[in-house]
């Protein structure tokens, strides 16, 4: 009998434990043993200038995540305000945020793409007062990037990383083709010309590495040819610009002819080929550099050549946002962390600058752009467009909320039917227009 009772109690304990794991944090905070609110006690402690812990979520799972951990540890040990940043790095940040927000819980500080403000806008606080409450100078931030993080006068994210795409070339293959190995192509006509010279079918070497499977790569290039896919018309309504876009048609024809002539492989993975030394040129993000260096490829980097759409830069801005789950004290603590990230310490070290130099991300701070260390870094300088007045919208007007749908749903429908179904560019662009009109229509309602 005793044994049975013990078993029953164990089973009941398991049940309780399994249920306890599902309880929300907020519920756990509600009542203390004495019946007083623990959250209220915590807030009182914070108001009295006591220690504050902020939950900081991001999706930096690679080597950048390791450095972020180091920098956050440095902040935790050095700051004199009693602030502790508790970081949670997740490979599936979107799913984690969606579940947490739906459950009425979430981080205080989150690091994600500025485009995420369209998805999680209801959970983000206006942080435009950060420039009043801290020593940060709004004028030090490159305007094109802060525009990305704003809606009207409200600022929802402070830039932390600028992710652009760049043109990489293999210097050894350039030399073999009789081209100047120190200079990448400056126009798309030159790109095609170089690709033809570099291609060597016998050695399985291709001059060009455009990749239909990389929607982001396609988008960055497409806009050089035919400008933004979605803009505002004179009535202030969104409009899609696919049908009759001669720039887009020119890009599709160029890509198709490169594939047909054997100068560009028909593949959904050009990274492996670039790091294997089989591609003369490709377009990709800064993360390609580590693979190239590991593989010992002698490479050069430059900005993507301009096309018919004129001078521009295009980038995705990753920024820090304060959520509605942060109390006033936690919000101020988040401000302190953001201030620390973008300021120089007594030794002249700035985490933001270190981040740019270590990973090759162009800076968003004018003061860093002017620093000697930044100017001396050849790699990062070759990715930096020093003209800070250039617009930086990526594929759509930076205020258009449907950017994800344009990149993931329309761009593949533009490139792949031309490559695989043999459809002509104009016909494909007309179909893309219909698709994009439906998307744009959702945001004009």
């Amino acid at each position, binding site marked *: 009998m005793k044994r049975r009772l013990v078993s029953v109690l164990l*089973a009941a304990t398991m*049940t309780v434990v399994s*249920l306890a794991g599902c309880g929300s944090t907020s519920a756990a905070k509600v009542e203390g043993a004495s019946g007083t609110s623990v959250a209220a006690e915590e807030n009182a402690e914070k108001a009295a200038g006591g220690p504050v812990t902020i939950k900081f979520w991001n999706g930096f799972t690679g080597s950048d995540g390791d450095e972020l951990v180091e920098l956050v540890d440095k902040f935790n040990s050095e700051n004199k305000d009693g602030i502790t940043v508790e970081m949670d790095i997740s490979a599936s940040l979107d799913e984690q945020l*969606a579940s947490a927000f739906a459950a009425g819980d979430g981080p205080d500080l989150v690091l994600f793409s500025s485009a995420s403000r369209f998805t999680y806008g209801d959970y983000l606080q206006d942080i435009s007062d950060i420039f009043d409450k801290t020593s940060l100078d709004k004028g030090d931030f490159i305007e094109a990037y802060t525009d990305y993080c704003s809606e009207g006068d409200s600022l929802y994210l402070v830039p932390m990383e600028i992710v652009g795409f760049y043109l990489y070339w293999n210097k050894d293959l350039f030399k073999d083709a009789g081209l100047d190995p120190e200079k990448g192509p400056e126009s798309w006509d030159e790109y095609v010309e170089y690709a033809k010279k570099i291609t060597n079918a016998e050695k*399985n070497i291709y001059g060009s590495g455009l990749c239909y499977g990389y929607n982001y790569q396609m988008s960055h290039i497409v806009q050089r040819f035919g400008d933004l896919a979605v803009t505002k018309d004179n009535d202030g309504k969104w409009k899609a610009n696919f049908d009759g876009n001669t720039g887009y048609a020119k890009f599709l024809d160029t890509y198709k002819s490169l594939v047909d002539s054997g100068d560009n492989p028909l*593949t*959904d993975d050009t990274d492996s*080929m670039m790091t294997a030394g089989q591609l003369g040129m490709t377009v990709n993000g800064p993360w390609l550099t580590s693979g190239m260096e590991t593989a010992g490829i002698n490479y050069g980097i430059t900005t993507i050549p301009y096309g018919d759409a004129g001078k521009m830069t295009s980038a995705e801005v990753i920024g820090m946002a304060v959520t509605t789950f942060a109390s006033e004290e936690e919000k101020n603590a988040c401000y302190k962390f953001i201030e620390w990230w973008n300021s120089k310490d007594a030794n002249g070290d700035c985490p933001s600058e270190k981040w740019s130099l270590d990973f090759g991300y162009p800076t968003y701070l004018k003061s860093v752009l002017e620093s000697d260390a930044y100017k001396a870094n050849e790699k990062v300088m070759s990715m930096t467009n020093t003209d800070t007045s250039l617009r930086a919208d990526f594929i759509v007007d930076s205020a258009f909320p449907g950017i*994800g749908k344009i990149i993931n749903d329309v761009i593949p429908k533009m490139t*792949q039917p031309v490559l695989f179904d043999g459809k002509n560019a104009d016909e494909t662009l007309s179909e893309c227009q219909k698709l994009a009109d439906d998307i744009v229509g959702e945001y004009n309602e």
Partner: protein
Amino acid sequence: MSNFAQEFVDAGWEQKCSQPLRKDDQMNKKSIGKLFGYFQSAEGSAYIFLLPSIILLLMFNIIPLLMAFGLSFFDVPMTLDSAKFIGIENFRDAFSDSRFINSLKVTAIFTAIEVPVQVFGAMIVAAFIAKNDLKNKFFRAIYFLPVICSATAIGIMWKMILHSNVGFFTYALSTMGLGRINFFNDVHLTIFTVAFISIWRSFGISAIIYVTAIQNVNSSLYEAAKMDGAGSLMQFLNVTVPSIRPTFWFILMTRFAGSLQIFDIVFMTTNGGPNYTTESTVTYVYSRAFSSGSQMGYASTLSVILFVVIMIVTVIMNKRMNAEE
């Protein structure tokens, strides 16, 4: 009621109240005691043991399933913070969505390739490795190895091996004069490549289940067949196959349902390309919910449609299996 339970109830009661017991309190005491007693009986304690599983099943299966059904009638974003009832509009949209229709077609083709190989191929292989000797144990381990590998690792590995330009296997084939086969970028071939990887990954589990079933076939049946002059092939067709029919149906049903839900291998290798020729229904559902759409209501609708398809197929198979039995 046991002595322990009685003492427990009495002690608690004495601590709380030194007043004489009222009538309704006495009734409560009796019913609590009765309940406590019931959960100590053989029948009652079974429910306690089942409770953790029931709760987990409810939390992770039943409730999400019911929620998905509910969400399919709403326009809901990923954060579930606002919901607009739209009736059957999502269902109407689904059946006029060319990408969804295409994804159903792709899933059907994938299932048609994968299921026969899994069901019949694994049966044949199992017949060869059913005997418990060292060689067969080694082969069973080899076949089972991919089952314990993650889909991510498998996807990356096969992408490297079969890469059209830098893949080892592609290179080996080209040295044999077969040219550079573009396994992942050919609209006619890529679905077979994905199916092959999926089969390679889960073939071992089907084979091992068959091996167990074959080992349980009564050996006297084989002896009788041998005495009747049946060779190995006839023994397999006339003794083994009929004896393992329940296992056959089990594998057929589980592989069917599994194939209709293919996601991870597609996501890791082709992400639905080239030109949507490998975009399965679940891959499309994922893209609507997370990649670009943030349309949780619409994604739920697509999942419900897939659920109904899988349920119909499974019920038909189950009926057929029961009829045979």
